[in-house]
């Protein structure tokens, strides 16, 4: 094929891949909904966790601290930020201590007698009114007079203020210049996003908007805004991971290109190697878009990792090209073995499809589709764009010597069994926990930031993100009633220091029953009028000045009780909305807790309420979900391993040859586990996926080393190909192992270790016979090239079979 045509096809291919990639990027929605990726919840708590994850009141809070400027300026910045955030639709609520709660509470003004607890202990009789009016007179000379005066005629008992006090945070930082300040002199704010805490996209835009607002405030240039909280951590973690992945990606790309140039002395591989992999990825995404319409972020990350195997396909082709032979012929010769590898791996991944978990099914579709397309591209497109070889890789200096060395390594046949036995013993008996269930151990957030979060959380009295008090009842009204009954018990727990603070849904909205009780205690207009007249005797209030009060009380007597739906329309509605949720047939109240010192103290509460109230440990629930998820993955991987064994055995026509392929793979995987266990690294899902990728690569090494070509040159080319593949994998994943991001480090370390072990063992455990056969002949790079070869040993110049 002429050069022009090759370039044209290459360009067309590239354009097509880019086009599909672009089209898919437009249509495929990357979701971060954890529900896609975990097995169906079994317990009610797991279900609650999945329904509410990140939507909970605590996880939507961003804690803000402004520092680095004089106190007065910090207070101004705090007020400025409070003001802009209050008008930003991304935020449901913002507080800096300076908010005029009386103003917020004024929305609930008609309901004040139903919402405030005053009527639980007092009646609006002459004695109570007299005491109240006397206090109001004194208030009129106080500095607060101008604040109280507007309310006086309608609300002489100041229910609005009492309501505002109830709605105000219970534990507040100290007020300086009217806004919250920490002991370290930072101005503190709390902002509640409308977006769920673990919706990284929405949190990122909320944070960006927040930072933009701050930067536009006058005098903010010198001050420093610190953000903390789950949403921020999510944004930070993904940003940090992306930055690090990009940086390492750049390093390894340069290294990879240099390595290709060195290995092949040609620029062609550099221009072509990535195409099958990219085609596979584009096809995988297109399939996801067609079948599911969306893909989970974890699917994409895991899928890309697993698809890394496809990088080997073109490299094999480049190493096996021979002078004077069309590339298409070399590919044809390699194809049976490559196809065996691809089909085996794809069959194995079918196990994921059968797992019943949407995320794993997506993973299977992506990986199988991607590998098949990458394989097909290698088989039929690579020959169209790659020119005939100008040199034979078998002639690479030092390669024959390396092969000789490897062939002469001692290989006692009992050694693998002993190593396997010792390995199993180490894996089983090594101290330290086997699995990493704590997701936070994988967070790339620096410890200092986590400590700062704890400090700000304590200073602001912000709720704990780990614990929630769960109240269950058949109706919303039932939850509110339960919440009212639990409140006094919770106060006892606070007194006993089992918990520092709490917030229950009934704090915002009393049950309808309570509201009706209070309503029933409101006097009728005639009684109120005469009580008022009695109370005003001798006081300087003008006659008739409290007419609006009398009218309001009368209106309150006839009001239907405030419902959750109605309350949720008020400015504070978002708080209740996140604390009172429908789940299945019933309703759930979520009480937030701060500073849970003794989780066991809640057991009595659970017992008293017959289980209607209990402490939900989000960490424990998440861990139980992760365990369930891992269980599924392990089952899927186990089935995948069995399928792989069957496929390889079938392809190699017998267990004896299959053992030469599967033996090194198994042992290498075991050895990686040994290293991780000895190093005291608990295994996470990322390790499992990395082990799977390494095993996929190891399958290639073992399959190619097992191949009996009987042609020493072909064996040298196999060694060349494998060395390039191993070097590239070590380069990519070895660099990743240096990452400061735990997830990237886990993947890098596991794959790099795996590749090293798989390679070593594939060489050492390859069938001894054909290595020996090779040693008897002298490598001769001038020998005629062009011997066909394949896994079925149909090569015309094949050495006699010497099965040991």
């Amino acid at each position, binding site marked *: 094929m002429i050069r022009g045509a090759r370039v044209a096809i290459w360009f067309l291919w590239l354009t097509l891949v880019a086009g599909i990639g672009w089209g898919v990027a437009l249509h495929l929605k990357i979701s971060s909904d954890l529900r896609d990726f975990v097995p169906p919840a079994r317990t009610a708590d797991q279900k609650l966790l999945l329904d509410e994850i990140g939507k909970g009141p605590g996880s939507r809070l961003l804690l803000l601290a402004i520092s680095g400027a004089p106190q007065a300026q910090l*207070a101004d910045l705090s007020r400025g930020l409070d003001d802009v955030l209050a008008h930003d639709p991304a935020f449901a609520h913002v507080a800096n201590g300076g908010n005029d709660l009386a103003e917020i509470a004024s929305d609930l003004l008609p309901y004040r007698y139903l919402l405030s607890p005053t009527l639980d202990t007092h009646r609006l009789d002459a004695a109570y009114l007299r005491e109240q009016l006397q206090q109001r007179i004194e208030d009129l000379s*106080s500095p607060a007079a*101008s*604040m109280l005066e507007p309310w006086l005629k309608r609300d002489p008992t100041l229910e609005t203020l009492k309501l505002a006090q109830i709605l105000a945070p219970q534990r507040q930082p100290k007020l300086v210049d009217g806004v919250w300040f920490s002991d370290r002199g930072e101005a503190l704010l709390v902002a509640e996003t409308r977006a769920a805490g673990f919706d990284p996209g929405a949190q990122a835009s909320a944070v960006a908007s927040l930072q933009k607002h701050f930067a536009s405030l006058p005098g903010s240039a010198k001050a420093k805004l610190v953000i903390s909280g789950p949403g921020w951590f999510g944004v930070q973690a993904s940003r940090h991971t992306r930055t690090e992945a990009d940086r390492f990606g750049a390093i390894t790309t340069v290294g990879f290109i240099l390595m290709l140039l060195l290995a092949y002395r040609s620029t062609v591989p550099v221009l072509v190697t990535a195409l099958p992999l990219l085609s596979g990825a584009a096809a995988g995404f297109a399939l996801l878009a067609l079948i599911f319409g969306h893909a989970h972020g974890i699917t994409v990350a895991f899928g890309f990792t697993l698809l890394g195997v496809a990088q080997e396909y073109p490299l094999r082709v480049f190493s096996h090209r021979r002078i004077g032979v069309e590339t298409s012929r070399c590919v044809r010769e390699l194809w049976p073995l490559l196809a065996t590898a691809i089909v085996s791996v794809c069959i194995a991944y079918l196990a994921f499809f059968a797992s019943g978990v949407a995320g794993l099914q997506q993973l299977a579709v992506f990986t199988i589709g991607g590998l098949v397309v990458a394989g097909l591209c290698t088989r039929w497109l690579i020959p169209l764009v790659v020119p005939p070889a100008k040199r034979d890789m078998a002639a690479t200096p030092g390669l024959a010597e390396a092969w000789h060395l490897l062939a002469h390594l001692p290989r006692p046949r009992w050694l693998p069994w002993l190593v396997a036995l010792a390995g199993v013993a180490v894996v089983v008996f090594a101290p330290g926990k086997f699995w990493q269930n704590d997701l936070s151990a994988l967070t790339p957030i620096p410890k200092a930031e986590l400590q700062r979060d704890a400090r700000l959380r304590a200073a602001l009295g912000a709720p704990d993100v780990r614990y929630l008090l769960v109240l269950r009842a058949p109706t919303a009204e039932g939850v509110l009633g339960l919440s009212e009954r639990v409140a006094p018990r919770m106060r006892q727990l606070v007194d006993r220091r089992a918990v520092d603070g709490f917030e229950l849904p009934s704090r915002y909205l009393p049950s309808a029953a309570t509201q009706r009780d209070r309503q029933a205690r409101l006097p009728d207009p005639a009684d109120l009028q005469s009580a008022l007249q009695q109370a005003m005797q001798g006081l300087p*209030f003008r*006659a008739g000045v409290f007419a609006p009060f009398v009218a309001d009380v009368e209106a309150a007597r006839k009001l239907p009780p405030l419902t959750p739906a109605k309350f949720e329309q008020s400015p504070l509605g978002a708080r209740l909305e996140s604390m009172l949720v429908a789940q299945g047939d019933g309703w759930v109240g979520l009480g937030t807790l701060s500073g849970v010192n003794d989780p066991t103290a809640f057991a009595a509460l659970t017992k008293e309420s017959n289980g209607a109230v209990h402490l939900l440990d989000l960490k424990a629930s998440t861990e139980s979900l992760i365990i369930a998820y891992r269980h599924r993955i392990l089952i899927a991987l186990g089935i995948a391993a069995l399928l792989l064994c069957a496929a390889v055995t079938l392809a190699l026509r017998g267990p004896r040859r299959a053992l030469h392929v599967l033996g090194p793979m198994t042992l290498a995987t075991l050895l990686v586990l040994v290293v991780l266990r000895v190093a005291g690294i608990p295994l996470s899902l990322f390790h499992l996926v990395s082990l799977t990728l390494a095993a996929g690569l190891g399958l290639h090494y073992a399959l190619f080393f097992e191949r009996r070509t009987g042609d020493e040159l072909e064996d040298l080319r196999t060694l060349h190909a494998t060395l390039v593949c191993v070097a590239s994998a070590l380069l990519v994943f070895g660099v990743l192992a240096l990452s400061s991001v735990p997830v990237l480090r886990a993947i890098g370390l596991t794959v790099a270790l795996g590749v090293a072990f798989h390679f070593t063992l594939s060489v050492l455990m390859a069938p001894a016979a054909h290595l020996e056969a090779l040693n008897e002949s002298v490598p001769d790079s001038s020998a005629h090239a062009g011997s066909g070869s394949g896994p079925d040993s149909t090569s015309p110049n094949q050495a006699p079979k010497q099965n040991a």
Partner: protein
Amino acid sequence: MHNPRWMQRCSMHAFRSALAAFALTATAAVATAAPGLAESLLAGMAKAPPVSTPFVLVSYRGVLDRPLVVSGNLRWLGGDNMERDIAKPFRETAKIADGTITVQRGNGEVQRIPLARAPQTNAMLAGFRALLGGDVSALQKDFTLAAQGSEARWVITLTPRTDSIKRQVASLVIDGRNHEPRCLTMMDANGDSSITLVGAMAEQGLRSAAPLESALAARCRNP
């Protein structure tokens, strides 16, 4: 160093009025066309804390049919720290510190009000500091100042410039003799008013339990 007599007995009064008076005096002094008056007033203002004065506050409120009278003592402790003790007819202590007004009546609960929520008090405190620290321009940010009369008998009028203060305060008028303010008259935006007697005027006390606003105002202006 000459500390004017009025300052030692410093007659000031309920936060707003008191602080306003100082601020007003100072600013007016600066703004006035008579440089001699301004200079001498300013010189008279300079004082090292603590400064203490008795006060009588008479409030005229729309919801009441007769004025409210409270009296007690006012102290400036330096910087943004002030205290006002009401002794009669009930006991109340109010303090400004760290931008927060803390009020405790009798042995009752302590009430905290952000100074930011009481813009007039806030501005007046700023003015007070500006006066004693010599930074009058800070005052002129919030108020328009006008001075009339002579050093022996002067009236300074403070009109709010900023919306947050305008919403609550219509004007502040301070009457004084020589270096000594006598009365601070605050007109609220809603039509209520109050007159605070400070210094010698406060010591003289009221001549009636419920003085008419016009009568008291006349007394402030006349000997």
